[in-house]
């Protein structure tokens, strides 16, 4: 919007609102932190939007379409543009107030993903009606500095606890990219736990990055980017869930087990590893939650059944949705054993640089073209991956 647009804008404003903005109100918003846009067709302004952006919060202050041009999707287009603009600016939440009685506007906002977050009593002076405060959280891959709170080694495993700067929702199966001190690239790690602002990661110090990570001390900050990727979908209908974890595969399946259990969905969790040192008691305790039926398998028989997870799979898969995560060999074998009609989700891994789908390093040659583990996965349906595990 530019100053020369104001005559047209003000005309629309007067026609749309009982308490219209004046010229000066618009002038102020023509430069940052104000941002104003017009919807134009053949030189004629049909609508406009005015926003203010401060830090990572946006406030939609005005959105209007000239009365003869309403109900043609111009409002949606303007709103969509504002949202895109906010994304461009790195805004993470967008807010607005709307008259409680303005059903059309409320419906428009809700379609775009806004939710009512609060209420301002008697906000509108002319009618004394309340304003509904609506907010929209913008796409949620967040880059933050996380603070190390605890590093707990348990046998070959290590749990890293970090506190984030804000509460971030996640789906089990999603992962983070975390700075590996002293190394150029960040490392992808499954989100083992994320509650309130506490992030938990399970790792095994085998590579240069993970070995650097277990050496961190409390109070240190590490860059993290999360939540990334697509998580495990819930089982359909009345299905029960079979979770097959091979070694470190437990990292992504652990939060899934807990989530399913809390939803009352019966969980059979098979966790196989080399020996008993892989099963720290505190983790086992958490996995004895009520809807979880846990079975342990060790190669040397030092805890639970002896053998490999692939040797103890059931023959019957009635009403089951299977979730598998573990070494490639294990997953290949699992997919060949489980009958094709059973739904199986697998979580894969591949070397990554960006974690967001920009560099295309983490390719999986699936059916129907290349997929990226970071963006299209890491959770895939068995049909998607075809033969690419071999």
């Amino acid at each position, binding site marked *: 919007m530019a100053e020369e647009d104001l005559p047209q804008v003000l005309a629309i404003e007067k026609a749309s609102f009982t308490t219209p903005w004046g010229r000066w109100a618009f002038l102020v918003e023509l430069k940052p932190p104000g941002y104003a846009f017009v919807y134009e067709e053949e030189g004629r302004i049909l609508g406009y939007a005015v926003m203010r952006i401060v830090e990572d919060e946006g406030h939609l202050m005005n959105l209007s379409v000239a009365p003869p041009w309403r109900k043609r999707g111009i409002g949606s287009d303007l709103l969509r543009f504002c949202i*895109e603009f906010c*994304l*461009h*600016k*790195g805004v*993470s939440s967008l807010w607005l107030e709307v008259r409680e009685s303005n059903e059309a506007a409320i419906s428009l906002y809700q379609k775009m993903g806004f939710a009512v977050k609060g209420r301002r009593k008697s906000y509108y002076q002319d009618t004394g009606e309340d304003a509904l405060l609506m907010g929209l959280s*913008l*796409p*949620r*891959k*967040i*880059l933050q500095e996380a603070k190390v709170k605890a590093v707990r080694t348990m046998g070959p495993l290590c749990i890293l606890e970090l506190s984030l700067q804000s509460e971030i929702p996640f789906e089990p199966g999603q992962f983070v990219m975390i*700075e590996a001190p002293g*190394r*150029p*690239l*960040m490392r992808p790690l499954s989100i083992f736990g994320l509650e309130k602002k506490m992030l938990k990661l399970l790792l095994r110090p085998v590579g*240069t*990055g993970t070995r650097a990570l277990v050496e961190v001390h409390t109070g240190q900050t590490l*860059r993290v*980017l999360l939540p990334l990727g697509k998580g495990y979908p819930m089982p359909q209908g009345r299905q029960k869930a079979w979770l097959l974890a091979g070694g470190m595969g437990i990292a992504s399946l652990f939060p899934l087990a807990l989530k399913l259990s809390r939803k009352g969905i019966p969980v059979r969790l098979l966790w196989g590893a080399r020996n008993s040192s892989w099963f720290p008691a505190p983790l086992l305790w958490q996995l004895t939650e009520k809807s979880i039926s846990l079975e342990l398998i060790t190669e040397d028989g030092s805890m639970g059944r002896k053998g490999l997870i692939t040797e103890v799979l059931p023959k019957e898969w009635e009403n089951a949705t299977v979730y598998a995560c573990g070494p490639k060999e294990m997953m290949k074998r699992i997919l060949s054993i489980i009958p094709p009609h059973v739904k199986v989700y697998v979580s894969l891994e*591949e*070397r*990554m*640089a*960006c974690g*967001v*789908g*920009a*560099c*295309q*390093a*983490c*390719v*999986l*040659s699936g059916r129907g*073209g*290349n997929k990226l583990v970071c963006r299209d996965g890491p959770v895939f349906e068995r049909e998607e991956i075809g033969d690419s595990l071999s």
Partner: protein
Amino acid sequence: MTPCLETHIGSLRLKTPLMPASGTFGYGDEYLGIISYEPLGAIVTKSLSLKPKRGNPPPRIHELPCGMLNSIGLENVGIKRFLEEKLPRLSELGLPVVVSIFGESEEEFLRVGESLKGAPSVSALEVNLSCPNVRKGGAAFGADPERVFHIIDNLKERVDLPLWAKLPPDPFHILEIAEAAQKAGAHALTLVNTLPAMAMDIQRGRPVLGGITGGLSGPALMPVALKMVYEVTRKLKIPVVAAGGISRWEDAMAFLLAGASALQIGTALFSNPRVFSEVHEGILRFMRERGMTTIEDLRGKAHEVEDHPL
């Protein structure tokens, strides 16, 4: 008085000298919502070919102590899908779009370039000359001054977009190759692309990368790139876009002093997605502290030591 970071590449005005390096920023919108695009002066796309290309099998990357190897294999959706699906989205970002192109033959370079004639919002073509000339045994087009001349010359004739020739880091022939590009009519040079390299998996007894060899990038490449930018801008009067291991504002400063007009950052984005904001801030601060008001106050200043020997 706030320093102004505006810069020019020929007639193309950029509000800041910073942009991503081709291949590290996808098709431009993957980082939306994660970082602010404010510090960027332009977007540079993934290199595009005539037909879609699947690229190499994994592993496609390998980390090194100060950098990385990549052998993505120029995977891309092909110019047709780019024009239909990706470019409209890119145009909405409000930034100049530099489209990177390549071909497996000289004709292909031309045909890809022609497909972009008249495309809305495309501000320049970055010609990726580091891809192998399959017909002539696989050496990069960019290693041969004659090939470089022909490719740029043909594009210049048929496509009226500014051309940036992106050259491989050949330390012994860079001047010759740069001169060929300039003579052919390139509006700018991007120096440099990645350095051919490889890594070995000694446990398995074979190369780490699925594509066997790959390109080295990151801090390890910086001194090599810096020398080339310095030498080329000293000898030739052609704008240079510097690329090669920039990870901090000090690196950006080094390249500007060496004569660069603009800067690309790639690998560093993976360590620190906020690198653009941090470098932008750093350059501003440096200039403010020294009372500099424009990029021209810095650009190429390092040459003076040779221009006026004591």
